[in-house]
């Protein structure tokens, strides 16, 4: 039972304890009214712990699906997903959830903050989910570092897109996860905000050694990651 995955189970990297992600022959097929769709077709790749990867490709090439599977939100039609020592693709949902809350941090394209919680409560929730005590001081420090401290009592519908996204990043890192999965985190932001968010993610990646996987169509963003993986029509097209 995965109730307690302790960090010390993992070999420490130079900077922290990032998780390795390994994917083998991953396929994802949907059946729709207009015939079957192959969102992913026999993808194989490995992300070393503590590295940062950008997955790029045209829209509809399966990037988001890929991220969903990496995060254990969906089960592939065939193939394996291994995160750290855990065979994610074979785990039952309660175990996946346990893994997610402690070790995964998600950043979505649209923020997806809980509308009935304030900015700081959104961040605090993730901390509590991860089993940490909700330390208001720590949360505030984090929000301050992301320059959204003045917004801590605001509700998401009172924030702009960029502000929401920064709070979302705070939520994704407050519990010090081993892997951060970001799906088009800068998609709806203007230039300045894009930079800020990317900076924050890389900063956290640098200081805590979490593995960072970013799906993006923005080349400029992609190029700031250490590796760029290209996807086209559900397949890997080799690193560039």
């Amino acid at each position: 039972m995965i109730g307690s995955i302790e960090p010390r189970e993992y070999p420490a990297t130079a900077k922290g304890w990032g998780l390795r992600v390994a994917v083998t022959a991953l396929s994802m097929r949907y059946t729709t009214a207009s015939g079957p769709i192959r969102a992913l077709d026999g993808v194989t790749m490995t992300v070393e712990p503590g590295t940062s990867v950008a997955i790029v490709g045209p829209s509809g090439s399966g990037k988001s699906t890929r991220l969903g599977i990496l995060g254990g939100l969906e089960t592939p039609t065939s193939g394996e997903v291994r995160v750290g020592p855990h065979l994610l693709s074979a785990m039952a949902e309660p175990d996946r959830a346990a893994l997610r809350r402690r070790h995964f941090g998600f950043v979505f394209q649209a923020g997806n903050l809980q509308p009935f919680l304030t900015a700081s409560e959104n961040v605090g929730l993730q901390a509590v989910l991860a089993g940490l005590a909700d330390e208001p001081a720590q949360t505030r420090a984090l929000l301050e570092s992301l320059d959204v401290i003045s917004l801590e009592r605001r509700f998401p519908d009172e924030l702009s897109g960029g502000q929401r996204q920064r709070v979302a990043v705070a939520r994704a890192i407050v519990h010090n996860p081993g892997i951060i999965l970001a799906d088009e985190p800068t998609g709806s932001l203007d230039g300045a905000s894009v930079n800020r968010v990317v900076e924050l993610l890389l900063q956290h990646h640098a200081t805590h050694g979490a593995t960072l996987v970013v799906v993006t169509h923005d080349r400029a963003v992609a190029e700031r990651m250490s590796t760029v993986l290209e996807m086209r029509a559900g397949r890997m097209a080799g690193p560039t």
Partner: protein
Amino acid sequence: MSSEDSALAAEDRPLLSLHAVSKTYRTARETTSVLKALDLELPRGEITCLVGPSGCGKSTLVSLIAGLLVPDSGQVIFDGQDIGALPDTRRAQLRATRIGIVLQSGNLVPFLTAGENIALAIRLAGRTARAAHIHALLKQVDLEDRAGHLPRRLSGGEAQRVAVALALANDPELLLADEAVGQLDGATARVVINTLHTACRDRGLAVLLVTHNPEIVSLSSRVLRLSGGHLERAS
């Protein structure tokens, strides 16, 4: 002026112009002045890019131009007519027939297929939707095989492209695109931009394109920056 001159003047006259337009938002907590005495001109046959930090009022500006909102003060003149003075029915008609709009998101009715969405737009303009026409429109954005897909079966970028095709369906004179190509990767974005350029050149389409994409901004000769409620020319 002679009639010839006035006709010329009409041609030269920008399709859309804003004069001292202001808009303020009031919520329970605060009052925000989003646009302050703005002036703007959109000439025919040109793509104008609008840039600026997020949350500064670009979407508000687009809504004003589209006639979805009315300015607190100032005028929005479309083809010589102050649309703020028009009743909502007339403004709706403008949107249906002469102004094409692509929003940042939520352009498609979720329970209609891509083709049906386009057909709806055509119907709202009072015209007959012909299958061949719809097909041609989708072909323009490289999605002719997606006509029967529901929006949830399209990727974000594909949905955006369908929205662009839809906005052009009724051969509008003005196209307002709020982050229409933001989500597209390089190649696809270029396809869309080319389509717009063609329409500009051949039909005199005026385009206002809100974007962050520096590549796209670089393609346009007219760039405006909105910041602090004011509009300024950027190079």
